[in-house]
């Protein structure tokens, strides 16, 4: 069978925008130009008069025909603050962020719908805008949700280990503040789908860029008030997702449009819509103290991270949920005595927060890595020295971290040392003086990180449970089903490799089916792919292998233990000349078992049905409560040059060492690493969601929200260690997110190192040329004043 890459590159991709059905209508959203306003009047007459317009759906219809968006995560207990807002897919009387959809025009074609979109007349009464998290928490800040006491959506408090002892034992305490700007994942393809509501059967089927079809079905059914069994969601080829397509939000409006018009209805989101009304991430303020000894031994942290969550997430509660990993990730890969971490989330008049590569685990790590670099500087240590001193050692696994995470395996010192070698750090540092004399500001950044992967938490839709199915069809080709959509992360290829390795069949004979809501699981988020779905698929294949052996042994009349399965053939090592192909095996098992048939035990257990559906759940989570199962390791070393007159940063060298356990396919893993690193570089240097004082997003296109082009992206040298995870079926670990964590941190660290002569702490991102230059100007002024 043709592989996916060949299919896609031959133009046979089937992305959301390629969907086409006879009589299909098109939907276009109309958004608010105000960040916070009362909808006083909304007239659709003019829009409806445009020839070709079928209907216009507004918040009125949403309230009339649908339920509020369902709760996806709820942690109201435990004395924490946890507020949820009662919101519909479109609002009836109030808008809360710039671009918030207030109406959807449905027309015969998209052009007509777009034209009519400008003719929907809305009269607004603007309200005061809450522009950022710190403002939002002020006592007199304008409130977003009337039924909330204030804008604080979340406040979580964690005590890990013994924070008080840690601070008592400390020689020194350092105060650290960092600030990460707001960003978005921005796949090149926006979101899109087609809905078909069958009025005769009262069923709904949708096709589109659904990253998590199973959850989408659950949430869309709940919103539309339909039994889940009457809804089917199909993922088509997805043009990148990175967490941004796990929603089921505007899709509800599309589904309702189909119901109201009786037509297939298509919606394909323009990029600008995706940026303005899409999930955002980061936008945090960290502040706290780190306790340590004079020899660099780390002891404890007391810190608070404040998140600007924007409006209530369209995945209600899932934005707030990301505060858990943000707090829990602080220990990273080091030994600690104790920590007290608080996570606060404030609602503001900005687009909502949801998942983007990293989700929250990135935040804690970036904070602590930054802190380590400051401590090292203060103690006159190199960044690697302080890390090597505090790492959990290879013989300490499984390691129970103070935050209840159970680290599965790794070689932290080995990973870092390799990266330092690759980047020739000593050589670069030796030349720094010389460079400075030439007016060149060169800096080296060193960062290491673990990536908690494969999430499973109670009280939310990220519960972990996962289903997979492997079936040998009657012609011997093999189909694989799971919840793991292909979003460009190689899920189809890795499933096929796992199955063909276990069954010894040919990879070309394995077809990984497009994901639908028929199989249970949360899909590929939080780097679950290589942990949950891959384990479930591997487990199914292993059970299937047993069935295959039993049947093959009966057909070949050999001892099961002597069976070999390789290259698509099954034979006994005692008699390699007599072979069965998978086709022959399937045909015999299903239809033509021979005159005497299969042995009765096989038939009684129906082991000749070569089809296994199974589930997988983490072996560590139930006992430890560790919400993650695997922890891959990465080390990043970067060398940059800063042009101190313009503030522009150039990346000269980039080395990344990764230990994601057993590698299923090196090319795929490398691809994930490269992509994540460049996204992190974008966050570090140029990506910025910038709202003006009226709450309007100013950076709402590819020409203002600046992701790296091929010109700024560096060459990246990658090397691997392979410390298998004892906790997954394949030994591999989730690895989609580590690269974006390390790369952002390492670029900022390298800039800081380059600016050593100015004694600048780089604790704010993005480090745009303007910002870097402003730091230099301020530092120079300070230096002159002190002279």
């Amino acid at each position: 069978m043709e592989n996916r890459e060949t299919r896609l590159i031959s133009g046979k991709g089937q992305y959301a925008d390629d969907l086409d059905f006879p009589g299909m209508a098109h939907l276009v959203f109309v958004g608010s130009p105000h960040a916070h306003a009362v909808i006083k009047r909304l007239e659709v007459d003019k829009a409806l008069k445009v020839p070709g317009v079928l209907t216009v759906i507004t918040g009125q219809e949403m309230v009339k025909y649908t339920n509020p968006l369902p709760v996806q995560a709820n942690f109201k207990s435990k004395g924490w603050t946890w507020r949820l807002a009662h919101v519909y897919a479109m609002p009836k009387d109030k808008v809360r962020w710039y671009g918030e959809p207030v109406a959807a025009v449905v027309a015969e074609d998209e052009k007509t719908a777009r034209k009519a979109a400008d003719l929907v007349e809305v009269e607004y009464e603007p309200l005061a805008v809450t522009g950022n998290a710190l403002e939002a928490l002020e006592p007199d800040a304008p409130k977003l949700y009337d039924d909330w006491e204030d804008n604080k959506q979340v406040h979580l408090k964690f005590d890990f280990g013994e924070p008080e002892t840690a601070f008592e034992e400390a020689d020194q305490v350092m105060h650290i503040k960092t600030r990460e700007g707001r960003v978005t994942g921005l796949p090149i393809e926006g979101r899109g789908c087609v809905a078909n509501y069958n009025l005769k059967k009262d069923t709904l089927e949708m096709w589109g860029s659904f990253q998590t079809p199973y959850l989408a079905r659950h949430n869309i059914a709940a919103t539309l008030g339909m039994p889940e069994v009457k809804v089917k969601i199909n993922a088509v080829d997805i043009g990148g997702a990175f967490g941004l397509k796990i929603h089921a939000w505007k899709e509800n409006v599309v589904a309702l449009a189909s119901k109201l018009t009786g037509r297939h209805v298509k919606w394909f989101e323009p990029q600008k819509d995706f940026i303005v009304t899409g999930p955002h991430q980061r936008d945090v303020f960290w502040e706290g103290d780190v306790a340590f000894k004079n020899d660099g031994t780390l002891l404890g942290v007391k810190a608070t991270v404040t998140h600007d969550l924007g409006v209530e997430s369209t995945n209600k509660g899932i934005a707030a949920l990301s505060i858990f990993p943000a707090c829990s990730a602080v220990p990273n890969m080091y030994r600690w005595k104790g920590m007290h971490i608080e996570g606060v989330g404030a609602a503001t008049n900005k687009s909502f927060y949801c998942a983007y590569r990293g989700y929250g685990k990135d935040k804690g790590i970036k904070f602590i890595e930054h802190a380590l670099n400051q401590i090292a500087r203060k103690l006159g240590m190199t960044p690697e020295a302080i890390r090597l001193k505090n790492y959990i050692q290879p013989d300490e696994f499984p390691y129970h971290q103070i935050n209840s995470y159970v680290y599965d395996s790794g070689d932290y010192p080995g990973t870092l040392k390799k990266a330092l070698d690759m980047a020739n750090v000593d050589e670069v540092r030796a030349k720094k003086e010389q460079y400075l004399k030439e007016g060149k500001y060169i800096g080296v950044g060193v960062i290491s990180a673990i990536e908690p992967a494969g999430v499973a938490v109670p009280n939310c839709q990220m519960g972990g449970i996962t289903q997979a199915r492997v079936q040998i069809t009657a012609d011997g080709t093999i189909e694989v089903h799971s919840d793991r959509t292909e979003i460009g992360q190689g899920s189809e290829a890795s499933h096929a490799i796992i199955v063909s390795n276990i069954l010894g069949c040919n990879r070309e004979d394995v077809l990984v089916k497009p994901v639908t809501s028929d199989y249970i699981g949360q899909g590929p988020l939080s780097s679950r792919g290589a942990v949950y779905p891959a384990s479930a698929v591997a487990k199914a294949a292993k059970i299937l292998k047993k069935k295959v052996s039993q049947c093959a042994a009966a057909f070949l009349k050999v001892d099961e233990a002597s069976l070999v399965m390789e290259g698509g053939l099954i034979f006994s090592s005692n008699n390699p000349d007599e072979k069965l192909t998978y086709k022959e095996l399937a045909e015999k098992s299903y239809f033509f078992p021979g005159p005497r048939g299969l042995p009765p035990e096989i038939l009684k257990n129906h082991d000749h049905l070569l089809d296994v559906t199974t589930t997988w759940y983490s072996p560590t989570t139930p006992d430890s409560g560790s919400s993650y199962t695997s922890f891959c390791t990465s080390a990043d070393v970067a060398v940059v040059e800063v042009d101190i007159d313009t503030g522009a940063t150039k990346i000269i060298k980039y080395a990344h060492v990764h230990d994601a356990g057993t590698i299923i396919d090196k090319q795929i893993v490398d691809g994930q690493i490269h992509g994540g690193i460049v996204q992190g570089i974008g966050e570090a240097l140029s990506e910025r969601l910038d709202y003006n004082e009226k709450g309007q997003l100013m950076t709402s296109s590819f020409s203002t929200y600046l992701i790296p082009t091929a010109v700024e992206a560096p060459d990246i040298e990658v090397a691997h260690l392979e410390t298998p995870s004892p906790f997954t079926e394949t030994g591999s670990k989730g690895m989609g997110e580590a690269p974006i964590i390390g790369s952002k941190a390492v670029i900022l660290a390298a800039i800081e190192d380059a600016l050593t002569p100015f004694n600048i702490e780089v604790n704010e991102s993005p480090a745009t040329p303007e910002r870097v230059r402003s730091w230099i100007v301020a530092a120079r002024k300070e230096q002159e004043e002190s002279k």
Partner: protein
Amino acid sequence: MKMPVTLNINNTTWNLDIDANATLLEVLRNNVLNQQSVHRSCEEGECGACTVLMDGKPVNSCLVMAASAQGSTIITSEGLMRGDELHPLMKAFVDELGLQCGFCTPGMVMSAYALINQWEDEELSDMDIRKAIEGNLCRCTGYVNIVNSIRRAKQAKDAGNWW
């Protein structure tokens, strides 16, 4: 307003009746021509997903009025195939995993094709490659394997394996 245009697309001449306000992208993707490899994202010339060759040069088809393309020769990435056989450049992308989600890929391939086709020298530096694809954004690959794919394709061309 409807108006006639004649376009040569992947070696077939089409006499089309188009809307005067249609872009080349819209016309290529419509039901008649069905060139679905030409992807649509920003519609403002910023992402390059819609890149095609117009009279041999890469252009953003979202920034070309279909009417103004009258008489021109258009090649989309589908047009590089020979029947079912991948063009050596596409083969290089598959071999080097120069695509992940595949959304940017057809446009990327067209920019790369234009680069290699007109490149006479032996030497093609990585920066030359990177500059040639600066108008094609990719969010998945970090460009590393794309640059590798293009370098490999250049070698294929040097070895006479090209069309």
